[in-house]
């Protein structure tokens, strides 16, 4: 132990003796524990695999996805699950095998027998670093692309004059206050409702603000979530693609009746929506 650095390698064989990479891989796989761990990894991986669908099933219980945004979100969740399964399975396999595969001792006294002194393993550490970096890189790239897509769908950063022009978007001013939501339709004479009415396949643009504390406007099945901040207006938007009754929940603790700050979204076909608006007092459309 003469020279000691943090990253020194304890592999004793000189580089000249090192067999070729394929040979070393073959040798490694031929070790009994290696094969067992690989098999275990695959088995655990397949056991975990249904999670990817179960997660989506749980998310879809109340009717999601009802918008392109929610579809993007579910796609993200699905692929992230798939991608993270191999690494998780490998770690679990090592955990299981280190208890059951390699020897174990459960005496009260310290064991007399020592394990192999593996201080490092260049191949292993490099592989881990590369794999985890690639995974992280994948997550980042995927996230960026999806975020850009979602932002485009929700018109968050698009200037007002460049927003979807093929159809006039519906504008809804969402007001959170302790502990009710009110929805105002400036395009319909400022009709105001305690329930959110939306038109199927028509882009809707939300201006969200709060009269008092921070709330969070969460249109669950539409995959829309944005804080309602006092002293600021936040924008988001969505195109509901499925008619039905969905939920709005408040996802930010806002005081006594936070749990009751819920309401429903009714996504209606075009004519029904117009009729509903007329009934609410918004006769003329914009």
């Amino acid at each position: 132990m003469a020279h000691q650095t943090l990253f020194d390698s304890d592999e004793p064989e000189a580089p000249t003796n090192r067999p070729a990479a394929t040979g070393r891989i073959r040798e490694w796989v031929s070790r009994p524990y290696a094969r067992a761990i690989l098999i275990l990894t695959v088995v655990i991986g397949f056991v975990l695999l249904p999670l990817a669908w179960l997660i989506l099933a749980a998310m879809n219980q109340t009717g999601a996805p009802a918008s392109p945004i929610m579809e993007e979100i579910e796609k993200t969740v699905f692929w992230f699950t798939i991608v993270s399964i191999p690494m998780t399975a490998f770690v679990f396999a090592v955990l299981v095998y280190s208890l059951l595969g390699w020897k174990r001792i459960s005496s009260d006294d310290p064991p007399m027998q020592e394990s192999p002194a593996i201080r490092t393993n260049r191949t292993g550490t490099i592989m881990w670093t590369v794999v985890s970096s690639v995974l992280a890189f994948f997550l980042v790239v995927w996230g960026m692309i999806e975020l850009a897509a979602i932002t485009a769908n929700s018109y968050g950063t698009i200037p007002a004059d460049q927003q979807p022009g093929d159809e006039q978007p519906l504008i809804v001013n969402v007001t959170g206050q302790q502990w009710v939501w009110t929805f105002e339709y400036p395009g319909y004479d400022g009709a105001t409702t305690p329930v959110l009415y939306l038109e199927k396949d028509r882009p809707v643009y939300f201006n969200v603000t709060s009269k008092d504390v921070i709330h969070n406007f969460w249109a669950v099945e539409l995959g829309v979530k944005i804080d309602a901040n006092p002293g600021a207006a936040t924008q988001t938007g969505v195109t509901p693609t499925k008619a039905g009754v969905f939920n709005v929940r408040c996802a930010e603790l806002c005081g006594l009746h936070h749990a009751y700050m819920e309401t429903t979204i009714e996504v209606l076909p075009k004519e029904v929506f117009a009729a509903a608006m007329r009934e609410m007092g918004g006769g003329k459309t914009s």
Partner: protein
Amino acid sequence: MSSATVVQQHSVPQPAQHGKPGGMIRHFNVVTAVILGLVLATIFGFLANRLVPSGATGATFAPVLPDVGFLAILIGWVLGFMIGIGAFIGPFRWLMGRDLTHADAEYLAGKDMGVGRYFRYTTDHKVVGIQYLVGFMVIIGLGGLLAMLIRTELGVTWAGVFSPDSYNTLIGTHGIAMIIAMIIAISGPVGNFIVPIMIGARDMAFPRLNALSFWLLAAAVPCLVASMFAGGIRDGWSVYQPLASQSPPGMIGYQITIIVFAISTGIASVNLMTTILRMRAKGMTWARTPVLVYGIFGAALMGLYAFPFYQYSQILALSDRIFGTSFFNPVEGGSVWLYENLFWLLGHPEVYVILLPSIAVCLELIPVFMRKPLFAMGFAIAGVVGVVIMSGLVWAHHMYMTGWAPFANYPFMLSTEMISIPVGFLVLVAIGTLWRGTAWTRLPLMAVYAVIFNKMIGGVTGIYLSDVPADQFFHGSMFVVAHFHYMLMGAGLFGAMAGIAFYFPKMTGHILDERMGSIGLWTAFAGFQLTFGSMFVAGLQGQPRRVLQFDNLFNISNWLSTIGAYTIGIGMLIFLAAIIFSWRNGKVASGNPWASKSLEWQTPTPVPLENFTVLPVVTERPYDYGVPDPYATAQKTSSDKAGVQ
């Protein structure tokens, strides 16, 4: 020059011994502290009542008294408590030029004092470590009680046990009590008791600051309890403004607790860092420093830069409340995003303040039980350093959905997902050390298995939350709650259990009862998976967090969650019973029951006052366990047996 001392060229004036060793501090202990605290609280409350009579009303309908009065009472309590414990004697003596003599210092360290030293302003790091251990158990007991009550409310859906205001109080107090408990969980007991011995020091760098940091904590926690009787903390542990400024006077209890606790943490961080940097034994180079020391150092460093933001966010909030300033009041120009930023500037490093020591303890004890050196120690250190650096750059991932700055979501998503690489290094080191080892399946090692399992689940669910699109669904839902419980409880608390079980023989001289401890651990572990596993499901289904009433859809997952929570409670109580039983009646431990090679196990148990009679010199790397790797040394053989070795 008035004194008769002759100052030599190279000698230091010797302080005079005034009276008995210790001087004034002989008269102070926890009883005087509590008495003086209560007296001063009463006086301050009375004065506040006189200054702001209860009839006077503010700008609104409410009388001014409860806020000002409650604040005065809490300040009186903290001041009185700290005076009563003797915390101000040190500065006073420094001002008067009455330096400590060696005898004074020894008295302060609790020499020959018996059990009484645990109830005094004792500077010995081992005493402080035990005090922290007990303090941790008390606070986590409080937090656990509140957790059980929360789950009772959520599980017993057919009978509303609590009204919404009480329920919100439970949530907030549970959150902050658990955060405080987990921050001190390992850095407190292990950091104070073990680290100085581990690095071969006689004591911490600043022994009196060490005592101060604990007693500040002891003064702060009663404020938290008092707040529950003054309307409570109804706004979650993050007490977002401006909701918090609508809270009853109890909120002031939170603010005072945090202000005092942040001072305590800051001082403890300074102390730990200075000790680690300056007081390592001769020959303990950075390469020879155990990984636990790195972990504690990283946690202390993050606490150092993060806690002031938290403290000042609460100071500003208190100022808003008492003096009518408007930092967080949007009506008058304040910004809610300012609070969120200040809060999460602490908030995210704080998560790693909890997590890093826990992982470090695990990495520290795996080699001992595997009889193997730590695998790729360089990666462990790189992981700690990476986490410390990156933890300061990720805070706004708690604010993806606030609309604060939509463009900032891109860089913060990048940094958040990148932090998984250094954390991954720590996992690599852990499983690399398990690799091909012969597990000595004692309780501490088994707790490490639990930690790695939970850590993986917490980590994988974390990547959904780090991703903005997915977070658009998960933010503010039960999924988040389950995720951070996997991190803070599954990894943090189980890591603390591993650490306590591992260092128990050194701290108390008895071995933690293996069977009771294991039953407790695994009961809690099973309950944990059930509780938070079903909480994940509730989150996926769309249950927002911090609600006491929810859709029927979530009933089943909440019922399961509650059953699991009770199981955790029972497991934790069994573990607690194991600690209580073993402390006095457990099997007597030798100095080194785990046959470890690190320094702290080379001292006798109980550890003598100054740890080492002769300061050790370190000549080898830590974790010098194991035999040469048969696969590396043997010529190419196809022996299957060798693999098992």
